[in-house]
């Protein structure tokens, strides 16, 4: 079972008879339902095994494999991707991180039997502010009594179990909450409220429920009392690193749709793919996609190879890639014109993908929350790590290369003390070639960042930080992406890399590294590559895999 099998199972998206084709996907969205045939197909494939560690009978030994499988589903239908199993993945990571043997075996069996585990963390009044979540668990003689409201919880009602986050102490601070794994809820103490509707991901059942002294047994506690936040912070490093890699899928399809349209649509006596504007937008979106793939690949591989550094890589990757993906959708919209606004027809998938991907900037963790996580880590890294630490093991950047087993115990909720991906940038030499000029640009940006981060005041590394401080977290994420792209491409001369770095450089601001003529050359190359991959039915990501469509 690998991703090619999965792609083959999902079949040709343009086949009108395919129960997992675009027509069926769009029809399910219109009904605000999950794609039932898609769920059955994933059940048949045993997709949940991707979420379950091999030691517990599943197929999860490499996070890059899981990310690739999820990406394939999200490429077809993000709603299916989220609603089928992303919450089981999130819950699962908390369970594998903190559960006891019995909890782990139970959860594994439940998932391998095609069950679902909801992740009940969110409360609308608190959003990303978990520390102030109001849902409480009160200890009683034989267990716990749960009270409060959980909202915007995927699959809350239809899940077979849930991981739930609750306050277990009235004290302030990071040890006031605990997690619970609950496989049975007494009906009379839990009132399910009507499902929340959303403008995208319309088939996903976003539940909400009111708990009133709902009894759960003592054994439901997941991990230690007061450890809820720490478990979440550690396991979220996995899920937040995986999401960016998955978001490449919808962008891949969107770019493919725009490129198809550009080659099909006749205007002014030619196809619109002849228009330089259209070529440039397709080229730039492709470069954006490659940049997102390179950074998220490094983040995912770092889970195995640089787990102690995930405290920076997970939030930085989620922060930058979510904006890049949405911006690329916005650019592609201008190529599709009115077709990007129609819910049916050959390009009707575009608007659905656009609606489905829209929460990327705030779902699971918001971009501003990512910045708040990054800020306190930057001064130390600036002073002690950048330009000082040894460069990361080249294995980090070897796409699809071997990986050691994932060791969840090595993920920490604390701050990263080294930053060896950035160190690869510091270690590079820069010549006068376009690539060398980019190396110099990103190194210069890193030096400036080091100076400014070193000077950050304590008040600036909190949620109350100044906009200038928040801008440093932004620039850090772009420099990290530049370092990741340079390292992933290595010494291979590739015009596409120049396009990737040019797009990232645009986000850094400042004078352009490329001359207009160089940019035109690079973008012509990228556009040609998009057209070639379209003809050959290849993915637009780093893998360039052949797919059924």
């Amino acid at each position, binding site marked *: 079972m690998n991703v090619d099998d999965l792609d083959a199972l999902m079949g040709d998206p343009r086949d009108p008879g395919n129960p997992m084709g675009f027509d069926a996907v769009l029809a399910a969205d219109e009904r605000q339902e999950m794609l039932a045939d898609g769920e059955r197909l994933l059940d048949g494939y045993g997709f949940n095994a991707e979420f379950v560690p091999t030691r517990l009978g599943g197929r999860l030994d490499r996070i890059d494999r899981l990310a690739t499988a999820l990406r394939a589903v999200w490429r077809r239908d993000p709603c299916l991707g989220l609603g089928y199993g992303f919450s089981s993945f999130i819950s699962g990571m908390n369970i594998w991180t903190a559960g006891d043997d019995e909890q782990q075996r139970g959860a594994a069996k439940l998932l391998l039997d095609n069950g679902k585990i909801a992740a009940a963390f969110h409360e609308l009044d608190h959003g990303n502010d978990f520390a102030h979540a109001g849902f409480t668990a009160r200890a009683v003689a034989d267990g716990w009594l749960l009270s409060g409201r959980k909202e915007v919880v995927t699959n809350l009602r239809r899940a077979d179990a849930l991981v739930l986050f609750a306050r277990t102490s009235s004290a302030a601070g990071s040890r006031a909450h605990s997690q619970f794994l609950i496989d049975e809820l007494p009906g009379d103490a839990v009132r399910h409220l009507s499902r929340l509707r959303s403008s995208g991901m319309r088939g996903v059942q976003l539940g909400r429920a009111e708990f009133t002294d709902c009894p759960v047994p003592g054994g439901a506690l997941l991990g230690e009392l007061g450890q809820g936040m720490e478990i979440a912070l550690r396991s979220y490093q996995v899920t937040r690193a995986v999401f960016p890699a998955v978001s490449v899928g919808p962008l891949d399809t969107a770019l493919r749709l725009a490129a198809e349209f550009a080659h099909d649509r006749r205007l002014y006596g030619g196809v619109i793919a002849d228009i330089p504007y259209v070529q440039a937008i397709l080229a730039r979106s492709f470069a954006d996609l490659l940049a997102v793939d390179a950074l998220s690949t490094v983040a995912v591989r770092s889970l195995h190879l640089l787990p102690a550094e995930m405290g920076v890589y997970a939030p930085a990757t989620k922060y930058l890639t979510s904006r890049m993906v949405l911006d690329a959708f916005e650019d592609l919209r201008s190529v599709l014109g009115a077709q990007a606004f129609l819910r049916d027809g050959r390009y009707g998938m575009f608007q659905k993908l656009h*609606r489905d991907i829209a929460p990327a900037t705030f779902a699971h963790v918001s971009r501003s929350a990512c910045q708040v996580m990054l800020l306190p880590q930057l001064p130390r890294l600036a002073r002690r790590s950048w330009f000082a630490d040894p460069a990361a093991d080249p294995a980090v950047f070897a796409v699809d290369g071997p990986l050691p087993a994932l060791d969840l115990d090595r993920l920490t909720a604390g701050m990263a003390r080294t930053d060896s991906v950035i160190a690869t940038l510091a270690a590079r030499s820069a010549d006068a070639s376009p690539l060398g000029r980019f190396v110099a640009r990103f190194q210069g940006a890193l030096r400036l960042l080091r100076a400014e981060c070193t000077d950050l005041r304590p008040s600036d590394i909190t949620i109350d930080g100044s906009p200038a401080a928040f801008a440093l977290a932004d620039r850090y994420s772009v420099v990290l992406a530049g370092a990741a792209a340079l390292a992933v491409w290595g010494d291979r001369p590739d015009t596409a890399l120049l396009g990737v770095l040019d797009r990232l450089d645009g986000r850094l601001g400042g004078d352009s590294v490329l001359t207009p003529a160089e940019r035109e050359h690079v973008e012509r190359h990228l556009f040609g590559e998009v057209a070639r991959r379209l003809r050959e039915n290849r993915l637009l990501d780093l893998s360039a895999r052949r797919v059924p469509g």
Partner: protein
Amino acid sequence: MPSGLIDAERALDDVLDESARIAELDAAEAFPAELCARLDSFGLPAYYVPAKWGGRLDDHEALLRLWRTVARRDLSTIVAHGKTYLGTACVWLAGSDEQAAGVAKAVLGGAPVAWALSEPDHGADLLNGTVTAAASTDGWQLNGAKWPINNATRADLMTVLARTGTTGSARGQGLFLVDKSTLASGTWRQLPKVATHGIRGVDISGIAFDGARAELLGEKGSGVETVLRALQLTRTMCGGLSLGAGEHALRLTGRFVSTRIIQRKPLIDRAQPRSVLARCAGLLAAAEATALVGARSIHALTGEMSVISAITKSVVPALTDLVIAELTELLGARSYLTEVHEHGAFQKLARDHQIVSVFDGSTPVNRGALAQQFGRLARAYGAEKVNGAGLAEAIDVGVTPSEVDVDELVLTSRGGCSIVQSLPGIVSELADRPEIGSLARSLRAVTARVVALMAEVRPAARPAMAAYELAAAYELCYAGAACLQLWAAHEARRRDEPLWQDAIWLRVALHAVLTRLAIVLRTPGPEAVAGDRLAELVAAAAMAGGSVTPFGPGASSER
């Protein structure tokens, strides 16, 4: 500001206080008939008809403001209702007295009118349409399909562009008036409503003609020219839709950040969310300045409208799209849920607004059109050529403008663009205003650079990407210049109003424009400007129903 106009804006605002119903209609994809009926009762159709034909279309600023007022409640309603203005624009330009009088009577009586330009496979390509018009003993007969067309089903009256000569020729198209209620059966059929991403209730459908009778509007080969001249009016007025959407987004978010508590403090008390809100308020102020000056220029700088309309249609929706994207992040889940937080109004306006940069000439189409005039614009900038009287009238916001001389609507602007060309002069005049001097000088410097680059662009049927980017930059220069001109013209009278104190709106707007310019041109951005005060004012205004933009009327009843 004439109090009559503000009274009209408030009165119109009052009849639309229906956010729950608006959400319900959108969810059901139902046409907002009851809201359109209220606009009819208010008398909005009269604003679409020139005074000469018994209407009140003598002030495009007034119409822009009224459209904004509707748009900030519901874009669907104004896209549906306002289409009549678009559909009739060609009639006033090219129709006979008799035709105009007939259409005027129908519009004043509340009849909707459609404008049938798009075709299934041609979209924006006006020259290569396949709908044909053939002369017969019984007048003209139309054949072929128009789709997707706003109001195609609800409207009996429609203006239709159809080919009378060879394909691809500028003189090969005529413009026709069709009255479906008089057509023989079998000569036309309705094409079904299209499912759209936003404005879901609006009648976006189509019509297929099969020998349908039509009247020629104007001369036989003049269809494309008439449409291009009409688009100079309608593209400019589309700014009102974006202003409404942007204002709605800013108000919804202003109320959210004022009340949302994160880590025991409201968001508005933290520096980062404040800076986002301020930046968005600055971008919206720049959009407002652009749209107001554009609408008034229809009267005051009519001969420049080929340039001004392209700029306005590109930059006002583009700035508003940026505002919506930034505010989406601040709102988080509340930007996405369709029932939570003020009836899910934000996700609706975000979806709805995406059409504005597409219809009536998309952003790339307008930028491509602007690029065709680069040479002339660059020369006129170098000469600091300014139509002084026209400029003065264009920035005299709130004063009833002179009558539009439609014969001055021409396809290229001989005078270039007075607003941009006035920049060196106004910057010199404001040299002694320390609070804005350096921002104004930065704008002048970057504009000079943009114009110099424009002068180097060789004319081409298919401009290079760099030309589109220069067009985008020139639009921003225009927006900045419009801000400066409006501020200089009005600050003496308005300096005590909160948004005008210390030139706060102007400084944040210019900074936002310069920041965008740096991103488009790939140059270093400007020094930071403290916008905290603007953010606090906007958040407070959103809570109290005050004005969130320098030329906004505020709301009489909130929400």
